[in-house]
């Protein structure tokens, strides 16, 4: 059931990304998501960028809804329902490598918090097209995390993709990979993980309508796993031989190539 929640704070991460602190605490697992409703406009899915204490939502402006979000301020209200998603990140390995593209870092942050609290090793790879699109992570992650930045144009950190960085890190004892970002990037991560036989979890974005596993709109071929219900986090083996990396469906349900 939707509940209106107060925005307790807004932080600008970079020119197109803001983090919203909501006046709400929930019991959820890293990787789960919520539906945020702007009355009169629309309702869209977002992961949790922080789960202990007031929850945080990190949003990238990409279209009409997220643009409207950028204009929201402390004290404003937004509709919240969730948390949703049975597919959640789980800590399996001793040394977790987190691979993120842009705002894809968001749902991975609570996982990093959890891994650190549990005394596990954490490497974070954070990539973007260019320096401006990176999220400032140094302070948020702290000293216990080894952070690798990558940009396609080399404007900051390593030149290349997050997946390039992952390949280089693999020898360092990584025994679990968790990834979130653009689907082509994640497809590469999946291939690398399969190759290296490392346990790997990935998040999937599909057009969500109901968000609760009823309307079937977010079903993926051929398993018919529902992103909103069975995901949004999946294990690598659930995604091999699937539509993942190849196509998705638009708002009408029509197939569009990635």
């Amino acid at each position, binding site marked *: *059931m939707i509940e*209106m929640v107060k925005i307790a704070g807004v932080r600008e991460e970079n020119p197109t990304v803001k983090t919203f602190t909501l006046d709400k605490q929930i019991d959820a697992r890293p990787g789960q998501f919520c539906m945020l409703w702007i009355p009169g406009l629309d309702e869209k899915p977002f992961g949790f960028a922080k789960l202990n204490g007031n929850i945080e939502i990190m949003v990238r402006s990409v279209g009409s809804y997220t643009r409207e979000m950028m204009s929201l301020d402390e004290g404003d209200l937004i509709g919240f329902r969730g948390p949703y998603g049975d597919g959640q990140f789980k800590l399996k390995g001793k040394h977790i490598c987190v691979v993120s593209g842009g705002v894809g870092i968001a749902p991975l942050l609570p996982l990093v918090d959890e891994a650190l609290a549990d005394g596990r090793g954490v490497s974070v790879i954070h990539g973007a097209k260019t320096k401006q699109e990176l999220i400032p992570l140094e302070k948020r992650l702290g000293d216990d995390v080894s952070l690798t930045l990558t940009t396609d144009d080399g404007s900051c950190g390593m030149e290349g993709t997050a997946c390039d960085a992952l390949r280089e890190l693999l020898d360092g004892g990584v025994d679990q990979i968790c990834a979130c970002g653009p689907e082509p990037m994640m497809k590469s991560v999946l291939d690398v993980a399969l190759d290296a036989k490392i346990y790997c979890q990935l998040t999937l974005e599909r057009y969500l*309508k109901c968000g609760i596993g009823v309307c079937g709109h977010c079903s993926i071929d051929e398993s018919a796993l529902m992103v909103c219900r069975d995901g949004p986090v999946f294990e690598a083996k659930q995604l091999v031989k699937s539509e993942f990396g190849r196509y998705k469906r638009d708002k009408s349900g*029509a197939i569009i190539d990635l």
Partner: protein
Amino acid sequence: MKLTTKLAKIKLDNPTILASGVLGVTAAALNRASKSGAGAVTTKSIGPQRREGHDNPVVVELDCGLLNAVGLSCPGPEESLRELTKAVKSIDKPVIASFYGKSILEFGHMAEFISKAKPDFIEANISCPNVGEFGLPFGCSAKTAGKITKAVKNSTDIPLIVKLTPNVVDIRAIAIEVEKNGADVICAINTVGPGMKIDVTSGYPILSNKTGGLSGECIKPIAVRCVYEISESVDIPVIGVGGVSSGIDAVEMLMAGAAAVGVGTAVWHHGVDVFQKITGELMDFMSENNYSSLDEIIGRSHG
């Protein structure tokens, strides 16, 4: 113990059917429901045009059910036909192709069109209350319901299910007219209401469409009454849909006169495993109460 049932000569392994609009957007999803134990599966209603459907929110979770106004989203008839064909080919249980039109004529055309995929049944959804542009549901007038039935029957040889709305003054009159015009099976009910949920903090109706159809537990008494009344009035079999989430619910529907039961909203709480859950509980009930086949249960509450 026999769980089989029959709808217009077509046999179902068990009486549970995935209801239209729930999960069944893709062939893969229909396949999954079938593998999870549904006795038959129904596609989301296929329409004559590509439609995005309503903006979110399209559902409201209530304590005793759902409000939904998905708005008949549809990738368009060609793409729907491809998915349907794939479903019919890959699924070893009866596949029901649900469809709608914006006029009597169009119902006929759509019936002809989707029949190309050779589904086991086609189901005319004359009852969707959510799409304002289509006006009041066709299913609200016995005369129109009859005309649509005839137009569809003239366009195809595939057995026809007509799905009725409960939001009418006398559902019996509509059922009788639909039977008279050649329907092979009646499916009842579509969602109730519609209803509206307002967020009192913002003052906004939550659904972008403002109103949406009510489904789930809270409509079961209405569905049972409709099935009871319809099966008293016609001879063709009835699929009872509305709030079924347990074996006992299924028994109630069957006793009211249904030959099979549709399951929609229950997927929300129980996931797609709900079909196995229902058939399991149904078998428990049958063995505890010494029933050996569904025939002994179907229609028991009458007379």
